[in-house]
């Protein structure tokens, strides 16, 4: 069963299905010959039903060379995956500006927590740099602190917020369009946003929300642009602890390349903290999943975190035993 789930995707699933159907027929033939259901035929009949639940998206190499039908007009809907190997997880910070002085995997020695010398620097204002210092991430970057000192709110099950849900850890999302909304369902730590398409204006001086207030429109038949304001400044932008003010505005561009492919660009506009707008993601590829794809649940439980800390986290971080 796991093999069929892991195969994922289109041609792999129909291949497995064909094999399973043959196996089932062989099994049925055998059982009628014996006049009873043998264990072989039992296994075959179970193999014939592919598991439609908790599906696992394919990794990047699966998509190489795949042809797609043309893009439908003004349609974002479906389950979209940021293939693992494309870097949706972003443990060193937003993909376009990781807090690294060398490419990922080559170490962070010589890095400074104020990000001096990172490969693609951000132009912090003095206020931005001050806010950056307060955030202490534990992931692999020049800003990494020992886990005991980290204050990453997501590690304690605080809402990931927006655009954190795209720049902190982007895995799988589902987009649903109705007459006046796009509804955005996010797998990582289970959250959602509503993007209004009824032509309303963004609110002025709204009460802050972790996921903000969003309006969206088609700028051509294949490009949907979303503006978001009113974001709670408690949330981090990414795994490296990049801060944002309450004045942050985020622009997302979802570009439907063809039927199976979308590109996502996320622009951060926050003059209070950053002297220039910057992109967290630039044409990041999202892959359409089959219509029956069921996203695995990925929720955060403070009780589970406490239990994990007690049994593993705290124990492995205690000072060395003298031997």
């Amino acid at each position, binding site marked *: 069963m796991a093999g069929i789930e892991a195969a994922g995707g289109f041609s792999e699933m129909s291949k497995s299905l064909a094999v399973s159907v043959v196996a089932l027929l062989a099994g049925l033939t055998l059982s009628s010959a014996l006049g009873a259901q043998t264990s072989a035929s039992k296994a075959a009949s179970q193999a014939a039903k592919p598991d439609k639940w908790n599906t*696992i998206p394919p990794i990047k190499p699966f998509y190489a060379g795949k042809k797609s039908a043309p893009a439908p007009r003004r349609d974002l809907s479906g389950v979209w995956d940021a293939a693992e190997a494309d870097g949706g997880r972003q443990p060193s910070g937003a993909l376009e500006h990781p807090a690294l002085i060398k490419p990922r995997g080559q170490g962070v020695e010589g890095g400074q927590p104020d990000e001096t010398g990172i490969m693609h620097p951000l132009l912090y204002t003095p206020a931005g740099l001050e806010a950056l210092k307060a955030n202490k991430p534990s*992931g692999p970057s020049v800003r990494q602190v020992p886990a005991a000192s980290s204050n990453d709110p997501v590690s304690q099950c605080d809402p990931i917020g927006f655009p954190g849900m795209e720049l902190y850890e982007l895995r799988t999302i589902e987009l649903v369009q109705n007459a006046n909304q796009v509804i955005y369902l996010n797998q990582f730590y289970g959250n959602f946003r509503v993007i209004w398409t009824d032509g309303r204006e963004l609110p002025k001086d709204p009460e802050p929300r972790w996921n903000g207030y969003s309006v969206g429109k088609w700028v051509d038949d294949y490009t949907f642009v979303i503006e978001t304001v009113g974001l709670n400044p408690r949330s981090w932008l990414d795994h490296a602890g990049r801060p944002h003010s309450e004045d942050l505005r985020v622009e997302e561009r979802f570009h439907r390349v063809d039927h199976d492919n979308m590109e996502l660009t996320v622009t951060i506009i926050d003059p209070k903290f950053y002297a220039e707008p910057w992109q967290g993601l630039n044409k990041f590829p999202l892959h359409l999943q089959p219509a029956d794809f069921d996203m695995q649940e990925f929720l955060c439980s403070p009780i589970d975190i406490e239990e994990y*800390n007690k049994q*593993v986290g705290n124990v492995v971080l205690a000072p060395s*035993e003298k031997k």
Partner: protein
Amino acid sequence: MTKPLKAISFVLVGLLAFSVSAVFAHHGNAAYDATKWITVKGTVTDYIWANPHVFVKLDGKDDSGNSGHWIVEGQNPVSMTQIGWTKNTFKPGDEVEIEAMPAKNGATIGFLGSASPTAPRKRIVINGKQFQP
């Protein structure tokens, strides 16, 4: 290390663990020695399939003879499904051999590393059958 010293240090570690803030946890790789791999052999006593990390508890020992209650941890469940793990992969009573990175502080805890499908996977044997790579 002599038995009394070991007992005292175990108590001290326990006290320290208790006093450290319970809120953080996410240590990433930094707590483990990524330059060496050990093999832990033993009998599974528990298997936690939950966020933030999946972990296997076993009574056994590593190749240096460090015996006791061992824990080997992986990543979150969704990531582990990418490399074929499920909530049923281990059961109490399973005889296992698991390769892992050892904890730098000498605790009987190992780390399996990345669950990326493209990362090299280390050996896991369950009841005599190779499960990984």
